[in-house]
């Protein structure tokens, strides 16, 4: 039964094939039995999960079951969960038990989902390999010697290993889409502002966006239905009418105009990845879509701009972790400066410190104009590139990542090569656009992800396109060797 999608499990619950309590118990047992292989969970919340499952069963018996009632889910460990450790995979917050729920956590809770636990990630969501976690690296279920991607590596690995039918993730530069691609699952980064950021531990506020990760586009739509919507607690959340993201999944794709950016298919792209992506595009042509080459001329500027802006915001966002009010505090500080220096020096990992230093430098007096202001200008150029292309085509398609999953440790001593893994994803965060990664093939036994980029607030369309693809392909149904279901 662990091969079932969220939608199929929902049907099972509705038919009474099993109760939420039985389902939850089964997943908890599976996590306990198998997660030592993957290290995808930081915290398993068995007691709360069983209580929530019981409540869901009672709600269903009383006739009050919504679409997600009783379905298990797990949250990336940067979403605050009341009464449960929320660590952001950092030593800094190893002792932090949140007194409140993030907006998306409470929305999913109110929708009746059952939280299995909190998922591993790169420390403070900074990384593309999930190797920077204080709780250890996560292993890719397709090959335990390889990374699952990051920063939502725990989320992607847990779904791929069928330890949870769905998970939440967050995406600042590709942190949902890249691990989804590397683990062979479906992950959606919504438009900036679509999902509330309240209670999501900030990495880079103007880029961060939460989204769903699951086996299928349909499952992602079901979860997004609960996650999305205006939140008065988040000034940057969009005031829009509620949408049903599962309502338009079956629209035919005839006449769909697809743009393929020539910059995305350069020689640096892995040949196997390129082949799978082109095959997928051919599949869309069979479904009635037309394809044309487009250009995003500033693509190569994405990485330098992003690695100014994201660290700049992060350097400020992470200032609150000072050892004063909560979180890690060094032993026996001799004075205030010592308290700050050692608490932060000991509490943060190397990649986090690297980014705080880069960001601090970029914002410093005398450098602001050369770095931060310039990067903001580039950001607007990149955004304009997308707007121009999306005036011409309905969606843009390309590889989610330049390579399939790489080996643990392979890039950890070379940050720039690690940063290059996000070249196709982080431009969307700079532009604020939605994107979905869909499994579209394999190369060398490893999954390949197709990224579909849509216009602002076009999530329903992206889910429709991905769903139609998943009706005619079965890449999303592939299960890693050694993962028994």
């Amino acid at each position: 039964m662990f091969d079932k999608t969220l939608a199929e499990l929902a049907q099972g619950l509705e038919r009474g094939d099993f109760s939420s309590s039985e389902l939850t118990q089964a997943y908890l047992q599976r996590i306990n039995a198998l997660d030592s292989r993957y290290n995808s969970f930081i915290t398993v919340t068995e007691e709360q999960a069983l209580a929530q499952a019981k409540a869901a069963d009672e709600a269903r018996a009383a006739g009050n079951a919504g679409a997600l009632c009783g379905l298990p889910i797990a949250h990336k460990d940067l979403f605050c969960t009341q009464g449960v450790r929320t660590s952001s995979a950092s030593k800094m917050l190893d002792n932090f038990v949140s007194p409140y729920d993030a907006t998306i956590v409470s929305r999913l809770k109110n929708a009746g989902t059952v939280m299995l636990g909190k998922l591993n990630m790169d420390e403070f969501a900074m990384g593309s390999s999930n190797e920077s976690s204080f709780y250890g690296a996560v292993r890719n279920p397709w090959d335990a010697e390889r990374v699952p991607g990051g920063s939502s590596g725990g989320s992607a690995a847990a779904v791929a290993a069928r330890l949870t039918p769905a998970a939440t993730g967050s995406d600042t530069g590709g942190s949902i889409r890249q691990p989804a691609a590397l683990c062979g699952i479906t992950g959606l980064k919504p438009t900036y502002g679509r999902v509330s950021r309240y209670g999501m531990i900030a990495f880079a506020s103007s880029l961060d966006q939460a989204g769903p990760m699951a086996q299928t586009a349909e499952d992602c739509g079901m979860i997004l239905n609960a996650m999305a919507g205006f939140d008065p607690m988040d000034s940057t959340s969009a005031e829009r009418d509620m949408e049903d993201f599962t309502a338009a999944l079956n629209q035919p794709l005839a006449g769909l105009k697809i743009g393929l950016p020539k910059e995305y298919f350069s020689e640096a792209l892995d040949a196997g990845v390129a082949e799978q992506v082109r095959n997928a595009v051919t599949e869309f042509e069979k479904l009635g879509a037309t394809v044309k080459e487009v250009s995003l001329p500033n693509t190569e500027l994405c990485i330098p701009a992003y690695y100014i802006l994201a660290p700049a915001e992060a350097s400020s966002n992470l200032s609150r972790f000072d050892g004063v009010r909560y979180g890690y505090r060094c032993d026996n500080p001799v004075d205030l400066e010592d308290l700050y220096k050692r608490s932060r020096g000991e509490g943060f990992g190397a990649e986090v410190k690297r980014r705080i230093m880069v960001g601090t430098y970029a914002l410093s007096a005398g450098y602001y104009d050369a770095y931060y202001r310039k990067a903001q200008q580039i950001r607007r150029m990149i955004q304009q590139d997308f707007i121009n292309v999306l005036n011409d085509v309905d969606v843009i398609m390309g590889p989610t990542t330049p390579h399939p999953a790489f080996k643990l440790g392979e890039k950890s001593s070379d940050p720039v090569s690690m940063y290059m893994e996000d070249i196709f994803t982080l431009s969307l965060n700079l532009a604020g656009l939605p994107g979905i990664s869909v499994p579209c093939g394999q190369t060398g036994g490893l999954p390949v992800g197709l990224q579909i980029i849509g216009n602002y607030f076009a999530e329903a369309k992206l889910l429709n396109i991905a769903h139609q693809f998943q009706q005619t392909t079965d890449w999303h149904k592939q299960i890693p060797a050694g993962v028994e279901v």
Partner: protein
Amino acid sequence: MEWEVVIGLEIHVQLATKTKIFSGASTAFGAEPNTQACAVDLALPGTLPVFNENALRMAVMFGLAVNAEIGKRSVFERKNYFYPDLPKGYQTTQLAEPIVGPGFVDIETDEGVQRRVRIHHAHLEEDAGKSLHEDFHGMSGIDLNRAGTPLVEIVSEPDMRSSKEAAAYARKIHAIVTTLGICDGNMAEGSMRCDCNVSVRPKGQEELGTRTELKNINSFRFIERAIDTEVARQIDLIEDGGKVVQETRLYDPDKNETRSMRSKEEANDYRYFPCPDLLPVIIDDSYIEAIRETLPELPDARRDRFMSEYSLSEYDAGVLSAYRPQADYYEQVVKQSGDAKLAANWVMGELAKFLNQNDTDIKDSPVSAEQLGGLLVRIKDNTISGNIAKKVFEIMWSKGGSADEIIEAEGLKQVTDTGAIEKIVDEVIANADKQVEQYKAAEPDKRGKMIGFFMGQVMKATGGKANPGAVTGILKQKLDALCD
């Protein structure tokens, strides 16, 4: 050498919103430490700010009141620095695009010096918490109740040329913000705090001297004293061949000296950048005009009206209009008593004395404007004399009650019955042979002064209740009759 003093002020005004600028926690003063700090104020992971529109409205009111341009687009930025009472590690403030642009106020010192002080800009920001360094056995306590309280920081141009002008400017800002009702004006509780930028230069020199900044001064008197002290220090230093160092200094009112806090070299690099958690604040003309409609009469206008409508002196009108609760109180007393001059004398005299002695704000006065107005009515209609009125006022202050109730209960009603007064005057004259002889012997033009003694005796005999006008007339008549 003759020196010229150059002063610019940065005044922090706490806005009287019910809740904080970016959270729903209360801003009330004096609660138990850390009971008015919510998840946002504590900067818990994941929390986000939401801008309190009331703070915006109040800042716009201030801008309009100081003749300023209002920023139709204003942007919050982060000022990054570490301090234990700054929970986020940055202060959310405005820098490049503030809500209030250039404006001005006109001031006048007690000596009659008039000056227009330009306001460079005023911006919205959040207050920090408080660090308490005593009573924690070598540790520091942190109270975050104040963290997130909305502030408007008003930055003047260096337009003031004396400590008196600086104090007059601060008083004017105080009068404006309290009149607008956007600040409670309580300086002792830190509702208005002042940083003074002070420099000196040889008279006639164009170029400004090196300035020092005196931090966190919280009374008008200390503004004057701190500046005078700092000016003297700077002049001594320069005349002794030294140089003023640009630095932040702290004024110690107990020792009446300023001392160095930190130099420019030690200053933080605040790494300002636009806060990505808050959207730019965009307002239009209709928003601004709707607020202009709600503006109360401002202190300058009210002072002018007090002069023309109530025939008050400029000084009285200035004092009464400077603090809105006092001006409102005064006008209520005028309305009640129908006598603007008498009302002014009482509000600035007896009432002010009692308020001062009891360290009470006029808003909390135990004697209401209605009560005082009722008392003045009884002075005017000769029910009681001015002296008896003071007695009634004292009872009113301590025990409450209307003037009529107190006059009745204490039997203080003035005796105006001529027959009764004549009888007492006769008795007094009969028992004062010596004084009568002196009166008779005196030159007629000196006699007026000598009536005082007899007056005192009559008042003593009547418990002060005899109508002084009537007594004077009768005494004069009877004594002069004896002289013929």
